[in-house]
């Protein structure tokens, strides 16, 4: 039994109600539906705004980070007044301002093998808006085990990808990408992206989520959308279930959530990214001392555009990209 719409809701959603594919019943379906958004960053921003505005009845937000000024060039759900506040609380406040008729549940914690099933089990769909490989594999496996659609989007520099991975009806993320890039082996393991790109791709992700929840159109199940902002190109490719998939194939050997950081060889949390590892990090003060005492040769492997932001005096610069070619 679908919930009724109040008079205020009928007025709020009147433009939706006039679309035959949505109508009163579709809007009631949305009110009755729930979506979990993993990550409230670049992709999570437009996704949570549009799902809230569209009237998805219950939306869950998972993020453990706080709003930083460097987020604001692309994470448009947050604002300058929210710097230092929890991202989930900042996003919730904006979503409820946009639409007070919905329910927003917040999970201010990292999404991990320990809590993911508990968090995700009560939602109809899961939206992957994370920014790292371990959490992407985790999000996929959770969706496979709980038999829920995983509305996937991913971005890097000027490239974007969108799909709906739903193992009951088509391939999962692991069918396409059985293994992540090796740490340090590939420029693909990095994560920087253009400013507007998460808006473009996140909006497409929200579109797919609404189609799945409404049961209309042809969601990108078994299809991958590839977008390139520099070329302004959209390409589609067909995806098939991988018979050797370790999580959704007939001989799957992964039956429960694993240690995804170990599987991917990288941490899933931003804060550790600047670390070279235990006992390998040197603070600026320590480096200054060592440079004074010894005749160290300092090699800076950052790229020229990074050096423009801040360069170290007397360091030799060989970008890591060139080093990999040697």
């Amino acid at each position, binding site marked *: 039994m679908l919930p009724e719409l109040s008079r205020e809701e009928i007025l709020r959603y009147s433009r939706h109600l006039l679309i035959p594919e949505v109508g009163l019943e579709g809007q009631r379906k949305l009110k009755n539906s729930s979506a979990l958004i993993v990550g409230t960053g670049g992709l999570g921003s437009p996704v949570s705004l549009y799902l809230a505005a569209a009237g998805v009845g219950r939306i869950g937000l998972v993020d453990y980070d706080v709003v930083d000024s460097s987020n604001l060039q692309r994470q448009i759900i947050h604002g300058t007044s929210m710097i230092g506040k929890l991202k989930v609380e900042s996003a919730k406040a904006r979503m409820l301002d946009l639409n007070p008729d919905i329910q927003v549940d917040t999970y201010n914690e990292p999404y991990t093998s320990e809590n993911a099933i508990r968090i995700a089990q009560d939602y109809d769909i899961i939206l992957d808006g994370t920014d790292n490989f371990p959490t992407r594999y985790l999000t996929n496996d959770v969706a496979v085990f709980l038999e829920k659609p995983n509305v996937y989007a*991913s971005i890097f520099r000027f490239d974007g990808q969108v799909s709906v991975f739903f193992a009951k009806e088509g391939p999962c993320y692991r069918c396409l990408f059985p*293994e*992540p890039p090796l740490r340090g082996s590939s420029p693909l393991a990095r994560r920087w992206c253009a400013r507007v790109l998460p808006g473009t791709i996140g909006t497409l992700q929200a579109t797919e989520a609404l189609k799945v929840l409404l049961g209309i159109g042809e969601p990108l199940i078994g299809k991958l959308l*590839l977008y390139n902002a520099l070329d302004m190109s959209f390409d589609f490719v067909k995806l098939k279930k991988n018979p050797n998939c370790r999580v959704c194939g007939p001989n799957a050997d992964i039956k429960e959530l694993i240690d995804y950081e170990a599987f991917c060889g990288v941490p899933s949390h931003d804060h550790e990214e600047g670390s070279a590892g235990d006992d390998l990090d040197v603070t600026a003060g320590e480096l200054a001392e060592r440079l004074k005492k010894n005749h160290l040769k300092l090699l800076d492997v950052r790229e020229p555009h990074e050096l423009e932001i801040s360069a170290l005096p007397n360091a030799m610069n060989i970008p890591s990209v060139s080093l990999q*070619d040697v």
Partner: protein
Amino acid sequence: MPLLRIPTPLRTYSNGQSEVSVIGTNVQEALTDLTTQYPALKPHLFNDGGDLRPFVNLFVGEHNIKDLQGMNTPVRDGEKIMLIPSIAGG
């Protein structure tokens, strides 16, 4: 000649080219020609044993070569081969 489409992260190694015309009648030949033209791409596509890295997918037209004939999948003149990497930004 078939056209190989390069995703932005790998364009650093293809002299900024988004599409590269390659000589070859199948995917293997096309990739050999690509990495001859741009040797810096090779370690990002192949492991030390010469096998395609598992996080790199190749599509001919709309289809994954894994669903066709793998590296022996034939390619025609003007046909597009797409390199689809796994990316994780969000």
